[in-house]
């Protein structure tokens, strides 16, 4: 059971959050200019690393903010959490 530090509210139980997948995937600015493969890359291709992972979470039952976390996908330890737009 994860214990996640919301950068706004502090440490809270995992059940207050919902997971929102890989972080730092920017939406392409001019989507029309992408070919199908590049678009597929944005849509579907994921790093899915074994180890350090940067991901988004939503503090759904709390402040309703999305934020980023760096979490290890093997031992599940959250190394840091940081606000959207910030670097960890």
């Amino acid at each position: 059971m994860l214990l996640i530090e919301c950068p706004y509210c502090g440490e809270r139980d995992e059940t207050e959050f919902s997971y929102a997948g890989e972080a730092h995937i920017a939406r392409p600015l001019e989507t029309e200019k992408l070919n199908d493969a590049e678009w597929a890359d944005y849509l579907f291709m994921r790093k899915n690393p074994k180890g350090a992972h940067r991901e988004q979470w939503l503090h759904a039952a709390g402040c309703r903010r999305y934020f980023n976390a760096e979490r290890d996908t093997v031992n599940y330890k959250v190394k840091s959490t940081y606000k959207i737009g910030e670097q960890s």
Partner: protein
Amino acid sequence: MSKYSIFSLARNAMSYHQNWAAAWRSPEPKQQYDAIIIGGGGHGLATAYYMAKEHGMTNIAVLEKGWIGGGNTGRNTTIVRSNYLWDESAHLYEKSMKLWEGLSQDLNYNVMFSQRGVYNLGHTLQDMRDIQRRVNANRLNGIDGHVVSAQEIKAAIPHINIDQGCRYPILGASFQPRGGVARHDAVAWGFARGADRRGVDIIQNCEVTSILQENGMVTGVETSRGKIMAPKVGVVVAGHCSVLADMAGFRMPIESHPLQALVSEPIKPILDTVVMSNAVHGYVSQSDKGDLVIGAGIDSYNGYGQRGSFSGIEHTVSAIVELFPIFSRVRMNRQWGGIVDTAPDACPIIGNTPVKGLYFNCGWGTGGFKATPGSGWVFAHNVATGEPHELNRPFALDRFVTGHLIDEHGAAGVAH
């Protein structure tokens, strides 16, 4: 090597079982093979088996980082069925079902495939529409199944709660009589023994650490036990497929999630079919040892930890007690997790990759055990011939580029 039978069992009993041969050898890896299969789960072993059996390729190695069958094959809830919605998947899973039906005999290894039927319950009007749609499609695809009413369910499963006043009353179900369960470990062992008998080297404790390529063509792999060369490499590593893809230099549309399961203490037979529910979110069957085998959905986050969160267990167990209130005093014995490779459309990815000679078979996610023989069979064809079989062609990686996704979330629904 002797065939397994009641007679060989009796004969060996006379010699106090001192003379059984190893089910598979434990050879040292050779430097060069015609093909390498990475991943000694059910799918990898089946691939090697069918490559040897159907395509005459015997100079093959299966490389397994741990012990064979120790991945999802060894930790799944063993539900087998083929009642998928879309034609592409229905045909693939039905191929697998047909192979299951003769598998013990083909392998000369009893995988205890038990066709006790599978119920997929519907709890809302939309559930029932979806069930109708799927069953109708199945029937036109030659796959058995019918829609049953709550009363028919009750008649077949006396202990289920069909009280219409409960939170999500059971309105009906789809029922596939040919569905059922199998002894998961035996599937890995049976394929391993079958492959080994045909000359395949099964090499355990051998982790692939990099994929060797020259000019966009695969040449072999680096492993924890040294370099092993081969012009063809099939990757069948389930939850680890992104890790292997990374070694090969491309990305996959896959996320690896923990999927948990649990068992009760062994009890006398009380449930002789398989019951699955999307809406209430849980499924249960009873193993031949007597434990209730229970599972539900994935944990939301990516994870390679083979464990998930307790909240998932809590929800799963309440779903089961909601469906079967009489199990309330039965006790949960053990829980565990696997690493499932989920694809955006809940369908597998089987076929060629950007690297020549390198083939991937993954994305089975929460429901690939049932596909083990079929997946191995088509992938053997793909690796051996270099071209996909008709059955796996729709499952190529490029569907994510064209947009031709095969959305089986409805049929896959609750993890299974």
